[in-house]
């Protein structure tokens, strides 16, 4: 059974003459335990797909079935126990006035988790932060540490699916490596399904098995990362993306 099944998804913003279509007729499936990447340039609609799945964009049409639940206009509480999201900017995704402890305990309390105190300790260990970080405010943390807290928050209710919206693009490369390793480990330990958005083919190639290449709201091509590596992309746009990202590191 696939964890995520999206069919003919359209997402738009505004209405009437101001309407702009961000995603047009996108369909894809993600298997249980798979890691699927969405790649494209800025404005291609890749993040919008994640937001539509998470229920942050109300204006969409099509069919979305996630974790066995057909999605409507509203998301149930049970949905949020199964699906969680990590945002791009670790500086914007933590409430500036709340300690790590408050962020995590509120998430757990909302999901009705028992035994919050010991679980927070374990969660912080899981994401590689010691107990010393528990009562800090976001401004006392570095970007990488904040992103670890955001990941811990996403994992607070033991979800099955994690949506990753450019989780490392705001971080230094060495910190990016740490976070990517962490995501790899967590995926193994918790049997997670990932959908990751990134503009960086290297990052997506590292974490994902299959990718969907997007341009102007549409899927250009869906291909396996191995095929991409072997330069087996069919579409010229995919090849163009590949070339520019390989050229920039040579």
């Amino acid at each position, binding site marked *: 059974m696939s964890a995520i099944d999206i069919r003919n998804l359209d997402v738009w913003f505004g209405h009437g003459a101001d309407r702009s279509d961000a995603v047009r007729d996108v369909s894809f499936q993600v298997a249980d335990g798979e890691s699927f990447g969405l790649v494209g340039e800025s404005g291609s609609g890749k993040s919008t797909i994640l937001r539509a799945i998470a229920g942050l964009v109300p204006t969409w049409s099509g069919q979305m079935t996630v974790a066995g639940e057909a999605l409507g206009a509203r998301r149930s509480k049970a949905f949020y126990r199964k699906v969680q999201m990590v945002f791009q900017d670790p500086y914007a995704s933590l409430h500036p006035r709340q300690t790590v402890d408050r962020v995590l305990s509120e998430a757990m309390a909302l999901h009705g988790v028992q035994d919050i105190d010991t679980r927070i300790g374990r969660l912080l260990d899981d994401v590689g932060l010691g107990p010393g970080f528990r009562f800090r405010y976001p401004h006392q943390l570095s970007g990488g540490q904040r992103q670890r807290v955001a990941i811990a928050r996403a994992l607070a209710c033991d979800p099955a699916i994690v949506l990753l919206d450019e989780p490392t693009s705001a971080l230094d490369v060495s910190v990016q*490596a740490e976070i990517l390793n962490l995501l790899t480990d967590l995926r193994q330990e918790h049997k997670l399904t990932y959908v990751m958005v990134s503009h960086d083919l290297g990052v997506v190639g590292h974490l994902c098995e299959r990718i969907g290449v997007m341009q102007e709201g549409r899927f250009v091509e869906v291909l396996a990362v191995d095929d991409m*590596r072997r330069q087996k992309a069919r579409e010229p746009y995919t090849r163009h993306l590949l070339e*520019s990202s*390989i050229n*920039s*590191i040579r």
Partner: protein
Amino acid sequence: MTQAPLLDVENLWVRFQTRTGVFDAVRGVSFTLGRERLGIVGESGSGKSMTGRAVLRLIRPPGMIEADRLEVHGEDILTAPEKRMRQLRGGRVSMIMQDPKFSLNPVMTVGQQLVEALRAHEPVSRGEARKRALEMLDEVAIRDPARVLDLYPHEVSGGMGQRIMIAMMLLPNPEILIADEPTSALDVSVQLQVLDIMDKLVRDRGMGLMFISHDLNLVAKFCDRIAIMYAGRIVETCKAGELRNAQHPYTLGLLNSVPDLEHPRARLEVLKRDPAWREAPSVSART
């Protein structure tokens, strides 16, 4: 490279007074810049941007700049009056920032801004300035420059915005260009195009380029020399072509922690920061 360097910096410190004491953002950095392309690489907080800003004395109080020598073309910058600094900034030394969205004035057309930028440094007529602006836009590979002159910044794409910034900064014919993460806000495919344009202009005009970036590979591609900064100091310098032979564990760590599309690894190498790096004296990047 026998003539005096365009930029001569010796033992540069940038200090901030904070509640808990003095914080040194840049700690005794020395380098020179000739008619060449010097890359300054480091992670956030390494002091690379502060170094770039200090050269233009763009550090706001409570920040303080100290140096044994800070000269642009033999002229002392440390003690120059603010009036002279304004002539230098944008005149002899130009700076390109990361995001064109924040560097262009949203309520002026591109043309007005280009003309202003030029007229601030040269006594030319508006018509003449407009002509030069058109030529300059043409040089940064903007099609139909006459139309672009009348656009507002929000009407141009990120890549075009950054090319306009480059045009604006190069209009008064500066000798030194400081580019602080000029393409980090752009998509990969546009990134290379913008850098190619910048590179060509800098080389054709025999300017000195100080390219500040977090991306070691990108810098290696577009520079002659590289200085790698860590915790406010330069830990290693090398010729761009010899980056593969870099010695310092920090440089190696940076190189190896990038996920490589062509050579996948199950785990990425993680940088183990040695406290000794912080204490080791700064390596001089003077030539």
